[in-house]
């Protein structure tokens, strides 16, 4: 049926204008507490405008008017059914600090994906290590850079020289920033490649493990096991867990996308992914600083035993942090969380 558009417009316009100005008021100041009469008015105008929209939808002869009413209904709908976070909520430092406990909690909730990441990395490492051990020719393929292929040369350079770079704190600072951004980017890639159903994440982890295994075996074979441990452990203690957590986030995302249709509380689930990313980014900042300022100094300056001890201490710290922080609260937290969220 066709309704009389002119009359319809004339009758509707006052209430549409009223709704529009109410929406502008509510949208511009999310902090303001909505008064009961405003809420009532919003509800009423929303219902009326929705009815108006239904009438033009069935008439379908006034595309503009329909579009206008759709926009109006969409905005009112969002205002009615969605509670915007208020500004004061967002700027509570306490909420932001909670990330330090929320990250290990998320890590533990999704630990099976972490286990999968570890498994694939270990497989890659074993493959790389065995290849270098039993087929020396594979070194040229597996280890792209010259310094990785010829450990003795590299060790010589590192121990004697220090001349290449890093002779000053200046260069180390610049170097650390590059490391931090590069590592975070690679981790984001690993975590984001979850959209390939985890295949991309798995490949990335496998390659990473392969390189690690090959380097470790190559250096150990040539008698530089101590050197390479002292070289890699201080920053590796944070860096390697971070890339594993990135893999964990990637697999978590893959699982999420696979079962998305059935049950998705997107709000909770995507927050989990974000927490893992935020946590690993913090770890990588530390790893980058250590790698630039500490790892690159070798024996005469810093004894290997000391470097390894520092690395081991860091490893213990990371393990403690990831496994134990926030643990006591988890029991009481479930109960405490509900009122906090509402």
């Amino acid at each position, binding site marked *: 049926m*066709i309704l*009389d*558009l*002119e*009359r319809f*417009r004339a009758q509707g*316009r006052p209430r*549409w204008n009223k709704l529009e100005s109410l929406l502008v008021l509510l*949208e511009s100041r999310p902090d303001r507490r909505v008064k009961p009469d405003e809420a009532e008015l919003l509800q009423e105008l929303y*219902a009326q405008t*929705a009815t108006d*929209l*239904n009438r033009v*939808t069935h008439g*379908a*002869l*006034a*595309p*503009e*008017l329909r*579009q*206008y009413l*759709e926009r*109006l*209904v*969409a905005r009112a*709908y*969002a205002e009615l*059914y*969605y509670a*915007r*976070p208020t500004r004061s909520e*967002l700027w509570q430092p306490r909420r932001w600090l909670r990330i330090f406990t929320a990250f290990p909690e998320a890590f533990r909730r999704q630990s099976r994906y972490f286990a999968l990441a570890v498994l694939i990395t270990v497989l890659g490492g074993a493959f790389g290590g065995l290849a270098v051990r039993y087929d020396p020719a594979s070194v040229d393929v597996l280890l792209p850079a010259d310094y990785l292929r010829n450990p003795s040369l590299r060790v010589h350079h590192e121990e004697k020289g220090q001349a290449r770079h890093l002779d000053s*704190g*200046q*260069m180390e*600072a*610049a170097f*650390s*920033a590059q490391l*931090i*951004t590069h590592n*975070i*980017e690679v981790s*984001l*890639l690993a975590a*984001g*490649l*979850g*959209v390939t159903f985890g295949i991309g994440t798995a490949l990335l982890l496998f390659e990473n493990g392969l390189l690690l295994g090959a380097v470790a075996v190559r250096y150990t074979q040539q008698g530089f096991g101590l050197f390479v441990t002292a070289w890699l452990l201080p920053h590796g203690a944070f860096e390697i867990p971070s890339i594993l957590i990135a893999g964990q986030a990637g697999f978590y*995302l893959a699982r999420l*996308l696979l079962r998305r249709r059935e049950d*998705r509380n*997107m*709000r909770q689930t*995507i*927050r989990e*992914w*974000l927490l893992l*990313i935020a946590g690993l980014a913090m770890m990588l900042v530390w790893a980058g600083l250590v790698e630039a300022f500490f790892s690159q100094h070798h024996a005469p300056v810093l004894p290997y035993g000391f470097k390894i001890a520092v690395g081991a201490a860091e490893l213990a710290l990371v393990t403690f942090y990831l496994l134990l922080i926030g643990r006591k609260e988890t029991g009481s937290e479930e109960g405490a969380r509900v009122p906090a969220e509402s």
Partner: protein
Amino acid sequence: MIGSQPNRLSTSAELTVATPEGVLFRLPLAGPAPRLYAMLLDTAIVLAAVNGLGYLVYWAFAKVPGFGVMTITIAEFAIGFAYGALLEGFWNGQTIGKRLFHLRVIDQSGFPLRIEQAWVRNLMRVIDALPFAYLIGGISVLSSPIMQRFGDRVAGTLVVRETPLAASADEIWSHQKYNSFTEYPSIAMRLRRAATPELASLIQDALRRRNELAPYARREIYRELAAYLQGEVAPFPDELIERLSDEQYLTNAAGMLFGDQR
């Protein structure tokens, strides 16, 4: 509750949202082109900001250039992600580029997007930007019924076009002095009954774009439309038709369909 359908009448897709009250409303989705322009503009803004900051840092860290490089490297990286995430998160789904190109990011169920979603979709740019020039993101947008890049799929968001908010103005057919079709109420009734919404909006568009069409094209389109209406939908008597131009015929028909002479 949420469905989507490509709309064949217009050139873009739309999202249809059903509210708990059973009201349906559609949101027009943004295509890849305006999103690309908005992104280019945002990129230019970020680059300008980072460069400006670079000079500042260079000056401030003149004595310790290494730390200057460190600061600027990290700042550049952080701004790259935070620009989109913070602006979209706090500015109701819009960056400067999106605002200028009338785009907005929203939750895929029609709500405003949340801050977590803004972060997720911006962090996922590392995937969408692969292998270069947002190729993956572009393919994802084109292959998705609701035009989502991977970041949008993961975050559960989509980009809508902000249609101008104004109730429609009066049209020529609503203030006609006299509509000769009113002399034939039964045929006019048949026109109203038989005209599908598509046909009606076609007539409306043809008249509304009168001044955009080249004279030749206008003549052809109006002639075809009028002939179709006269031949297939509602044949008015010949003595009336002879007095009317095709344009007048269509204006009269529009007056019958949309106007208040009923």
